[in-house]
């Protein structure tokens, strides 16, 4: 246990550190000796070299998802890509219809974009997932009307790590002639993505969940059949008019290198991470009243989202100060609502409040996992000793039968 550095980072779905190999490439694009030029400068060497670096990165991003580099539009991250995709398509195709379908478990970047479109007069259907977090395709079909212009369903959920069946949804959307957008911020380097095969029209990416820098992302915009978008950012007409703004060469180069490494190392990395996740799961699963949130099978290797009944999430996080994890508890956010994702799965508030998301990544070690198991077990025991609900559960009292004095 000697050489473990605390706190232990187990929040790779929030963001990842930049891989040192990526950082090295990025720092070559900053100073006067490096590739600092404006890729849009056509009149000199500095611009040409920067453009070459951007082109290489565009190819590297396209390669990871088997797309054409001309289908990649740089953005500031997945939030911007989601906005550009959904607003851009809804606005462009509004003569065809005014209905959008998405899911209640989407990231806020999608949900809030849809809310904005509602304010503009669009109608949005927010589908409930099944209890395991996955979309029921029949529900999607039933919600579709002749007014539906955009379907937006995320690939991998950021909280529970479940993987949606993008292939099946894509088949349906294409058959109906509906634009299909996928938020893939959490899936690059974790799940195979083959855009020659998947019938996806628009796909959002970001670098900082895949060992690249924050503040850079991309939107895949299909060329065949061609998808049109209304630009959301106007200016110098960069990125074929879809997204103006001087390209951030160092960020883009970082994203390219990060995605290149992801493609190269994904298979072995996933295997190692899955082993660590299963070790963590097995180390906790024999405790009483422990529930995994979301489907365990259709799930990325690095995610374990688990609820410890009768223990409140924020106090658990506090006891786990040596672990950097996140919680579905309301207390960790500004609102008093517990995680809307867990609520959408039909989890009751108590279980939502007591959930912890562990996300494991490239730099996680076996020693760290074993240390985490010990800490979590003793914290849960300590807090259950403090918990009146645990006493009641042990006494056989059904908590649902109690009349609580809510406040």
């Amino acid at each position, binding site marked *: 246990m000697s050489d473990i550095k605390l706190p232990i980072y187990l929040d790779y779905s929030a963001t990842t550190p930049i891989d040192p190999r990526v950082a090295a490439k990025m720092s070559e694009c900053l100073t006067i000796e490096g590739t600092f030029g404006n890729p849009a400068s056509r009149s000199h060497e500095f611009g040409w070299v920067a453009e070459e670096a951007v082109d290489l990165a565009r190819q590297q991003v396209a390669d990871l998802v088997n797309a054409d580099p001309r289908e990649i539009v740089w953005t500031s991250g997945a939030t911007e890509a989601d906005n550009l995709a959904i607003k851009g398509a809804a606005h462009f195709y509004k003569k065809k219809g005014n209905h959008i379908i998405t899911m209640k478990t989407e990231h806020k970047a999608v949900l809030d974009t849809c809310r904005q479109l509602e304010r503009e007069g669009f109608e949005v259907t927010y589908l409930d997932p099944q209890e395991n977090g996955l979309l029921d395709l029949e529900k999607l079909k039933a919600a579709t009307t002749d007014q539906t212009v955009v379907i937006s369903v995320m690939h991998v959920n950021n909280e529970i790590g479940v993987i949606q069946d993008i292939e099946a949804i894509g088949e349906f959307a294409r058959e109906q002639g509906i634009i299909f957008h996928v938020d893939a911020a959490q899936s690059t380097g974790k799940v195979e993505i083959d855009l020659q095969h998947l019938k996806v029209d628009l796909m959002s990416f970001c670098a900082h969940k895949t060992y690249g820098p924050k503040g850079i992302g991309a939107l895949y915009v299909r060329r065949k059949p061609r998808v049109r978008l209304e630009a959301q950012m106007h200016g110098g007409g960069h990125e074929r008019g879809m997204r103006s703004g001087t390209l951030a060469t160092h960020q883009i180069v970082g994203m390219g290198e990060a995605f290149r490494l992801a493609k190269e190392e994904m298979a072995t990395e996933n295997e190692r991470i899955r082993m660590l996740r299963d070790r963590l799961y097995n180390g906790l699963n024999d405790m009483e009243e422990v529930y995994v949130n979301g489907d365990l099978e259709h799930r990325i290797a690095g995610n374990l989202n688990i609820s410890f009944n*009768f*223990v*409140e*999430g*924020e*106090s658990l996080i*506090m006891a786990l100060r040596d672990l950097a994890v996140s919680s579905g*508890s*309301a*207390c*960790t956010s*500004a609102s*008093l609502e*517990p995680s809307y994702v867990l609520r959408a799965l039909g989890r*009751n*508030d*108590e279980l939502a*409040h007591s959930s912890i998301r562990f996300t494991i990544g490239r730099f996680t070690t076996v020693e760290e996992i074993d240390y985490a198991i010990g800490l979590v077990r003793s914290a849960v025991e300590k807090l259950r*000793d*403090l*918990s*009146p*609900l*645990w*006493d009641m559960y042990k006494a056989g009292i059904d*908590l649902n039968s109690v009349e*609580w*004095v*809510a*406040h």
Partner: protein
Amino acid sequence: MAYSEKVLDHYENPRNVGVLEDDDSVGTGMVGAPACGDVMKLQIKVSNEGIIEDAKFKTYGCGSAIASSSLVTEWVKGKSLDEAAEIKNTHIAEELALPPVKIHCSVLAEDAIAAAIDNYRSKKQ
């Protein structure tokens, strides 16, 4: 979220955790709801002279809720029921330096005292 030293101290070393054997001298107050993320159970043992001679708590909730109830068990001991009822959420919040989003924890602790006193008095009627 950053916690004050006092919250951390009560959270790390909660005072008077436990359960009092229920009889006529014991008042029990349970407030809050699991769905809201906090439930406090406060028990007071009252002497024949009407002085709170022991107090125990169990709390399901965030660190500030645990600290508020732990603090309250210390404060009520040695007080008469009327004196204990004077303890207000503002005192608790001030002592623990609770941030605005955690004021409800101190309110809950005040409610718990009131509920325990009510319960004790109802047994005496």
